[in-house]
């Protein structure tokens, strides 16, 4: 039996507003328990929700970025269920009339092709609090700081057919929300969470199979593993002739398996109805266009522009545009030094390498664009060689100062004086007669040896181009 995998993803993105979606409490991460839970967040008797306009703006930005329909009239509904991290015993969400309608994402697959994944809808809702089980015997502690943080729930069409496609989609959404500045997409802190709906059906069958929902997976790697392990599990069940149970499952990263989370009898009737404490959200076409005009250039457009106007390769352009901070950094440098390829090499190479080694985001890079520009200009004006520049860069990264300061302090200026270089060359030639003879008799490759010797003698400071040129002249028989 040939099976086809069908995957849909529900991604919950925490919107990076300063205050909560329905109250004026702070959304800052990491505060002491319940110090950012005001009367409204606690669901005290008599409190009422008041809607944060920034959450609307960020949601609309996302919708526009994925080419989706923005609903000019949307409504908040109550999703009723009892759980201690849900203080009102209902979550304010949007079921019937969400803010964002149908859209799409184009993802790059490993074989280089592109696939269009549909987005069914995206809606605003409030986050729940946190349950802490560890510190208490037989009890659970509830922290409501997170309760009321704005979420955008992005629901994909069941268009993905493999774990890899799912991860590609997830990465693209991640990139877009960070690009737009609507979320920091921090998976460790829980501001970007993914649920995957996985099912199998016989190839060719139109009807979907029974699906399992994998909940709260917080890394790209785990999403791929969880989906794959679930596909295997379901395939085993179906091949043995049994049926898959529709249920929610949790991924256990240590055991690399999924396990059932909620039993059937907890299946909830959420009794959705429009929240009578809130009024319909109405946004005009003009307001939507005003928001559209604030959208930054998005990854795909930026990538195309880099390829067209800066003549960068697709590989480089893609790599530079995945992360908006990296792209911003790149553009600042490229515009100042003019050499697109040089800037790309440095940023994708040296800068990214040190950032990754120290686990630092581009935004926090200790060498800012101005400083890097200063360094690259010294290569361009021949003050130092590219190789020396790498040494200087490491020192800059370690906080030893700007390029000129370090070049001065360490005496790294390139030697470009012809006479000085000739003097070194003369000495090398004098000290290596056999290699000279071999070279002159036709062993052209030995030029590398001589260049190496000159560079060594000059502690790397001799201008390589000039060294080469002068050696060629001087070594002529």
């Amino acid at each position: 039996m040939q099976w086809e995998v069908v995957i849909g993803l529900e991604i919950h993105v925490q919107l990076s507003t300063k205050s909560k979606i329905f109250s004026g409490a702070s959304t800052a991460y990491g505060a002491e328990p319940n110090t950012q839970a005001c009367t409204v967040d606690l669901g005290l008797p008599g409190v009422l929700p008041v809607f944060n306009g920034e959450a609307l703006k960020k949601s609309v930005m996302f919708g526009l970025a994925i080419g989706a329909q923005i609903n000019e009239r949307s409504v908040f509904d109550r999703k009723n269920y009892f759980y201690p991290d849900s203080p009102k015993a209902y979550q304010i969400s949007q079921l019937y009339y969400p803010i964002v309608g149908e859209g799409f994402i184009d993802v790059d697959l490993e074989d280089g092709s592109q696939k269009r994944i549909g987005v069914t809808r995206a809606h605003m809702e409030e986050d729940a609090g946190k349950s802490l089980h560890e510190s208490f015997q037989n009890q659970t502690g509830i922290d409501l700081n997170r309760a009321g943080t704005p979420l955008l729930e992005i629901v994909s069409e069941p268009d993905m057919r493999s774990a890899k496609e799912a991860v590609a989609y997830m990465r693209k959404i991640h990139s877009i929300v960070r690009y737009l500045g609507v979320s920091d997409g921090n998976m460790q802190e829980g501001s970007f969470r993914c649920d995957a709906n996985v099912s199998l059906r016989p190839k060719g069958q139109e009807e979907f199979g029974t699906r399992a929902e994998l909940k709260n997976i917080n890394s790209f790697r785990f999403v791929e593993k969880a989906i794959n392990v679930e596909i295997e599990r379901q395939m085993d069940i179906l091949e043995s002739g049994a049926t898959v149970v529709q249920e929610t499952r949790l991924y256990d990263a240590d055991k690399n398996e999924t396990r059932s989370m909620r039993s059937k009898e907890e299946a909830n009737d959420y009794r959705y109805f429009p929240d009578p404490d809130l009024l319909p959200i109405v946004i005009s076409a003009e307001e939507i266009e005003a928001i559209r005009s604030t959208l930054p250039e998005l990854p795909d457009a930026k990538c195309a522009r880099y390829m067209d106007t800066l003549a960068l390769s697709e590989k480089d352009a893609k790599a530079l545009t995945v992360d908006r901070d990296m792209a911003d950094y790149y553009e600042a440098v490229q515009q100042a030094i003019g050499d697109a390829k040089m800037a790309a090499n440095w940023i994708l190479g040296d800068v990214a390498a040190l950032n990754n080694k120290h686990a630092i985001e581009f935004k926090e890079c200790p060498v800012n664009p101005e400083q890097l520009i200063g360094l690259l200009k010294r290569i361009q004006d021949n003050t130092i060689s590219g190789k020396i520049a790498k040494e200087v860069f490491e020192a800059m990264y370690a906080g030893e100062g700007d390029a000129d300061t370090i070049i001065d302090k360490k005496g790294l200026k390139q030697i470009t004086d012809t006479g000085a270089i000739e003097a070194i060359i003369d000495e090398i030639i004098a000290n290596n007669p056999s290699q000279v003879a071999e070279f002159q008799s036709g062993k052209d490759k030995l030029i590398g040896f001589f260049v190496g010797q000159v560079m060594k003698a000059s502690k790397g400071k001799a201008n390589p181009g000039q060294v080469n040129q002068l050696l060629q002249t001087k070594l002529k028989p």
Partner: protein
Amino acid sequence: MHNKTIAELSAGLKAGEFTSVELTQSYLNRIHSLDEQLNSFITVTPELALEQAKQADAQRAAGHVGILNGIPLAQKDIFCTKGVKTSCGSKMLEPFISPYDATTITKFNGSGAVMLGKTNMDEFAMGSSNETSWYGPVKNPWQLDSVPGGSSGGSAAVVAARLAPAATGTDTGGSIRQPASFCGITGLKPTYGRVSRYGMIAFASSLDQAGPMTRTAEDAALMLNVMAGLDSRDSTSVDEAVPDYTADLNNSLSGLKIGLPKEYFSEGLDDAVAKVIESAVKEYEKMGAIVKEISLPTSNLAVPTYYIIAPSECSSNLSRIDGVRYGYRCEDPKDLNDLYIRSRGEGFGAEVKRRILVGTYALSEGFYDAYYVKAQKTRRLISNDFNQAFADVDVIMGPAAPSTAFKLGELTDDPITMYLSDIYTIAVNLAGLPGMSIPAGFANGMPVGLQLIGQHFAESKLLNIAHQFQQETDWHTQTPDAFK
């Protein structure tokens, strides 16, 4: 002193005839000696009241103060009051000392008013007789074996018995107007969104409104001046300018067009009550008003529409009261569900449970369209009826209740008949219109209220219409013998 209105008391304070402390103490004494008969207070706050009175006197001495400065009031126990028990008439909130003030309370505090205590009410505002309170029923001061009406029965009894010059109430389906009618006082339910609901424990969010319960229309205007206004903490509160509600009180009613819905004068309305209403309307004709019969054909849809919408909204609103962060918690819960089920099972009374169950059912899968959505549609039909009527008339009048106050225990086993006692008031909440009940006479020795219904934000006009009636009649000055 206890027979004076807010306006009169304020003048007395201003003239130095007495201090707020003296005034407050005199009401506290009255409450202490008389409330045992009525059970109209759940919590009396003597220390707080006297402290507030002292401050009010100091403010008055220091300079210009508003009319409500130093005036003692009673607050319905549905308003969250910081540092003071807020029970909403329920065992479920028996231990709840609110950590914050409702906006209405903040506004009264800002005006310098004094809080004598929190009044008794039907549990979570669900009831029409003040018999569902955990704290025992309230008695009607006119006849102690009768109900005061509900859910603001405590506030109505307080004002009728002169235990305070005025009180606040809330009205979802008639809970200010019906008890005002049963107790012979003046009650106003403002337009939906006129007064903030922040801190007012929610029953049915799209229907609830807070309002004044007083002896006179003038006093109601003075209270509304403080209560009304946009509140940024309440999304449903309306950004409509607040006029001085006393400004139009003395406007002439000549040419006023009064509509009497024929549906209100059919079987179900007590004959003696009907006679009182007819006489009251004749008073208006004497003042130059023109009376015409109108029709509100959807009147019979009001009660069924309400009894889907209100329980649905309240079933969700009350879910937050689960014993986790505040309120009553059962002993030794063995797991989470047990905590919820037993706390709520032991904490809520039967009427509240009934409505939670009905609302949960109406919203549940498979029934939502048939019940809730259907009710929202009939709600629009009811609202349309009023819009059409107001094209022809300026105000709609009729009885506030189909009878005078019934006896304690008479309807407790008959919920549906109990629901029908709100038959004239419910449609007004569904349409969000302002409504008043003013004392219009007596039937069988018990008070009868005349209901006035106006267009959205026409409180000034309603108060004017009420005030003029109170210049020509003296029903509103009557006091039950036991409390003179």
